[in-house]
C-alpha cells in the first residue's frame, strides 16, 4: 500500500514562521511535523510515499532525501487550489488502495495501524474535538460516515475529520468530476461518494494534533517532547544538575552550574552557558547559544539563535537565527491575539519572534506579541504591539 501526504501548503496563519519554510517543516521537539507523519506511515510498513509539495518545496526535498530507505516521490502542485486538487496530482503514482494524510497534522503509529487493518473499501480517521467549527465536522450513523461539513456554522456534535483516509483509487475519477465543476476540496468528494451510497467506516484516532497558530508550536512541543528520552552527547561539565528526561545533542557543551529540568531537548553544537536554568518542555535547536544566568521555560528556540545573559523567556517561540542581547524578557501572561481577522484568547503565552531578528539589550516583549522576521529592536524598548516583518523599532 502507498501513502500520499499533502505538504504543499504555506500555513499563512503561522506567520512569521512560515515565511521561509513550509508549514509541514515547522519543528516540534526538534523534528519537522512532516517527519512525524512519515514515521507513522513507515512504522506501519508503508515504504512508498508520494508527497505533494508546493510552497518552498526545496526545504522538504532536501531534508528527506535518503530518508530511512523510504521510496519518496515528489509531485509539485503549482497552485494550491484545494485538498482534492492536491491529491489529484498523485494520481499517476497510485494503482491501488492507498491512504492519504496531511503533512501538517501529527498522527501516531497506532491510529494509522487501525486505519490500515480496517477491511472497508473506504475509511476515515476521526477525532473528538471541543471546537469542531474550524474543521470538517463529521456526522456518523452506526459508525459509518453520513455527512461531513467543513467549518459548520451550527452546533455540530463532537467529531471532526482528521483528513486522513483510506481510499480506493476510484476516488480520482470522482475528484476529477468535481474539479470540472470547480470544486477542489477532498471533503466534498467524500460527501459525494457517501451520497452515492458508499459506506465509509469511521475509526477514532489516538494521537492527532493540528498546528494552526504560532502558539500551537509551544503546545505541540509540550505534548511531543514527552516521548523523547534522555540521551547525552557533547560535554557536560561538572556541577551541572540534570533532572528528568533531558536530551543533549552531539558537540554541545553544558557549562557548569546549569540546572536543567526535563523534559528538555537541546540540539547539536549548542553552548548552554554557565548557570543557565532550563525548565520543562523546552526545546532548543542546533548551534544555539544561551548565555549565563538566563532562564528559559516551556519555550521553543530554533537553530542558530543566541540568547543574551540574564534573559527570561517563558512560553515563547524564538525563530531561527535570532540574536538577542542581554536582559531580554519574554514573560508569559494572558493575551488576546488577532490572526487573520480572528481573535484568540490565551491564558499563558509569551512572545513569538520570527527568524533572524536582532534584539538589543534590555528589551521587554509583552505577552502574546508576534514579532515578524528580520526585525531590529533597539535597547530599552517595551514591545506592546505586533511588529511586522522587516521592521525597525528605534
Amino acid at each position: 500500500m502507498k501513502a500520499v501526504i499533502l505538504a504543499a501548503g504555506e500555513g499563512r496563519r503561522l506567520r512569521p514562521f512560515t515565511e521561509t519554510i513550509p508549514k509541514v517543516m515547522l519543528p516540534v521537539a526538534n523534528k519537522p511535523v512532516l517527519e512525524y507523519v512519515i514515521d507513522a506511515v513507515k512504522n506501519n510498513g508503508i515504504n512508498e510515499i508520494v508527497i505533494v509539495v508546493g510552497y518552498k518545496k526545496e526545504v522538504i526535498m532536501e531534508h528527506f532525501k535518503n530518508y530511512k530507505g523510504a521510496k519518496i516521490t515528489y509531485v509539485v502542485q503549482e497552485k494550491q487550489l484545494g485538498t482534492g486538487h492536491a491529491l489529484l496530482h498523485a494520481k499517476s503514482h497510485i494503482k491501488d488502495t492507498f491512504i492519504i494524510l496531511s503533512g501538517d497534522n501529527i498522527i501516531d503509529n497506532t491510529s494509522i495501524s487501525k486505519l490500515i487493518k480496517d477491511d472497508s473499501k473506504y475509511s476515515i480517521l476521526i477525532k473528538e474535538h471541543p471546537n469542531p467549527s474550524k474543521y470538517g465536522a463529521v456526522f456518523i450513523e452506526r459508525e459509518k460516515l453520513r455527512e461531513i461539513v467543513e467549518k459548520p456554522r451550527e452546533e455540530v456534535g463532537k467529531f471532526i475529520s482528521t483528513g486522513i483516509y483510506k481510499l480506493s483509487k476510484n476516488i480520482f475519477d470522482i475528484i476529477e468530476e468535481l474539479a470540472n465543476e470547480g470544486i477542489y476540496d477532498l471533503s466534498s468528494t467524500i460527501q459525494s461518494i457517501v451520497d452515492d451510497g458508499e459506506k465509509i467506516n469511521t475509526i477514532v484516532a489516538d494521537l492527532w494534533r493540528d498546528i494552526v497558530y504560532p502558539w500551537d508550536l509551544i503546545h505541540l512541543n509540550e505534548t511531543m517532547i514527552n516521548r523523547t528520552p534522555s540521551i547525552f552527547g557533547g560535554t557536560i561539565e561538572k556541577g551541572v544538575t540534570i533532572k528528568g528526561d533531558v536530551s543533549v545533542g552531539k558537540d554541545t557543551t553544558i557549562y557548569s552550574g546549569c540546572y536543567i529540568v526535563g523534559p528538555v531537548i537541546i540540539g547539536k553544537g549548542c553552548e548552554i552557558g554557565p548557570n543557565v536554568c532550563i525548565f520543562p518542555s523546552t526545546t532548543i535547536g542546533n548551534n544555539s547559544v544561551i548565555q549565563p544566568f538566563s532562564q528559559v521555560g516551556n519555550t521553543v528556540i530554533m537553530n542558530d539563535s543566541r540568547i543574551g545573559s540574564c534573559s527570561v523567556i517563558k512560553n515563547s517561540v524564538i525563530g531561527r537565527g535570532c540574536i538577542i542581547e542581554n536582559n531580554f524578557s519574554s514573560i508569559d501572561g494572558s493575551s488576546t491575539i488577532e490572526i487573520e481577522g480572528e481573535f484568540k484568547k490565551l491564558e499563558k503565552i509569551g512572545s513569538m519572534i520570527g527568524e533572524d531578528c536582532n534584539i538589543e539589550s534590555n528589551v521587554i516583549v509583552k505577552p502574546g506579541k508576534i514579532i515578524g522576521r528580520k526585525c531590529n529592536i533597539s535597547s530599552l524598548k517595551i514591545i506592546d504591539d505586533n511588529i511586522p516583518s522587516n521592521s525597525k523599532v528605534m
Partner: protein
Amino acid sequence: MCGIVGYNGFREANKVLIDCLKRLEYRGYDSAGIGVIGKKLQVFKEVGEISKLEEKIPSFEGDIGIGHTRWATHGAVTKENAHPQLSSNKKIALIHNGIIENFQKLKEDLEKKGVKFASQTDSEVIVQLINQNYTGNLRDAVINTIKQLKGSYAIVAACKEEPDILVGARNESPLVVGVGDNENFIASDISALLKYTNRVKYLDDGEICVLSKKDIKIFNKNTKEVTKEENIITWELKDAEKSGFPHFMLKEIFEQPDTINKALLGRVSEIDRSIRLHEKIEDLLNYDIKSIRILACGTSYYSGLVGKYLIEQLTDIPVIVELASEYRYFGTKSEDSLIIGVTQSGETADTLAALREAKNAGCRTLVITNVMGSTATRISDAYILTQSGPEIGVAATKTFTSQILILLLIAFKLASLKNKLGADELSKYIIHLKELPRKVREVLDNSDKILNIALELKNVDSVFFIGRGINYPLSLEGALKLKEISYIHAEGFAAGELKHGPFALLTQVTPVITIVTKDNTYDKMIANIGEVKARGPEVIAIAEENDSEIEKHADFVIRFPGQSNPLSCIPIIVILQLLAYHVANLRECSIDKPRNLAKSVTVE
C-alpha cells in the same frame, strides 16, 4: 581525466561496471564504454553520459569486464575514441586514464610495422603495443609495454585468451584495488567501489597488478611480487540530490548557511572565547613559524589568497600562496615554513605532488580538504575537513567558502598562540563568525535583485572584476565563476593595477564589477570607479548596506549585509556566485557540467 573500473568475480559484470561508472561520472562525461568477457569479448561504447550507455547497451553475459568514462584529452569526442580501445585483432581490450607523452612516435613505429589504427587516441597506442608484445602472458606483455611509455597512465587490460584475469598498471594517475570475496575490483577511486567492498589496496607508481577472482597479485616493475597492506575504508558515501533545485550548483549555493555551520561545528566556542582544533593540528601550529606557504590550484588557490590576507592581518606571519603546479618544480622548500595544502577533493594531482615535495624537504604539512580518506589526508601531517558534504556542481561554491573559514580558524588559532589576539577581540570575531549564516541567508533572499543585474551582463563579451586588499582575490574568484559557467570572458584585477595596462581593454561594452568595502581602501576604490566610468563602461558595485555614497558613483549597486569587516568576504562571495549562476542560466549554459571541465583534476 577519465574514470576507469574493472571487475572480476561472480556477479554480472556489466551491471557492476555501470553501477561503478555512475559514481565515477564526475571525472569525465563526454563518452563511456564497457568491455565484458563472457563466451567472447564484447565491447560497447557510446557518446554522451553514462545514462545513455545504460539505455542502449545490450545485455552482456560474463562476470569479468572493464568500464570507462571519458573526458577527452587526445582526440575528439567520438565512439571510436571512446574506451575500451581494442587491438586490431580484437583480442585485447584496454581502458586508460592519463596522457602518454610519447604516443606520437610509438604510433608511427607501429604504423610502420603495419598496424592499422581505428582512433586518434593515445590510449589505442597502448593496447596495440600490448598486442605486439603478447606472447601468451598478458601480465608480461603489459610489463614490457609500460617500459616503452612516457607519461601518466592508469590502465586495465583484458585478453580474450586469458579470460580469468585483468591486468592493471599505474603511473601517476590514481588506481585503487578493491578486495572482495570471490570477486575483486580495480578503479580510479574508492567511491566507485564502496558499495561493494570497503577493503582497498593502493597501487603505487610503476606497479602492476593481476586480478583473478580469488586473489590479487601486485608486482613492481622488476616483476617482483610485493605485499600491500589492506586498508579498511570507514567513511560512507552519501548520495547527493538536487532536492527541487534546478541545478546542483544553485542548491549548493543555497546550502551555504548550513555548510558554514558545519565548518565551524565543534571548533568555535562563544562562551569559552576560543577556537578548538584537533590536538594534532594545534601541535602542528604551535611552533615558531617563520612563514606559511599555501599550495593550491584553481578556486582553492583563490581561497588561499583570501586566507593570505586574513592570516597576515591577524598574525604578521608572511604568507606566500603558490600555484601547486609551479611550486612542485620551482618553489622554495624551507623547513621552517608551514605548508598548507588546499584541495577540495584531496586528489588534485598538482597539489598532491607539491605536498609530497614539501614533505620530502622536511616541511610540516597541513591539508584542508572536503573528502575524508583522500590521498591528501594520508600524505600530510594533519588535515582539517571542511565537512560540506559532496559537491556535485563542477564549479566550486560551498567548498570555497568553507575553505576560507578553515583558513580563518587557523589564522585565529595562530594569532591566539602568538598572543596577537586577545580573548575579547577573538570573542568579537566569533560573534561575527556565528552571524555568517544569517548574512548569507540575507544575500540568498535577494537572489532576485541579483538576477536583475545579471540581465545587464547576459549578452556582453567580456567583464572585469576589480577590488583591493582582500577583495582582490574575491575579484579573481568572481571572474573565474563567471567564466566557468557562462563562458563569458572575465578577468579579475587588483584595482590599483588597472591603470598599468588592462585599462586599454576597457570599452563601453565591458562592464566592470567593483567590490567596495568601507575600510581604508574605500576612497581609492571610489576614485577607481571614477576612472573607469570616464571610459564609458557600466559599473556594478558590490557595497555594504550602509554605504550611501556609492550610488553617486556606480550605475548599479548590489548590497551585502552588515558592516564591512574581514568576514564580509563570505556574503560577497555568495553574491558573486549568484551573479555568475544567473548569467549562466539566462544564457542557458550547462551549469552543473560546463563544457570541457571536470571536477577534481587528476591529470597534470
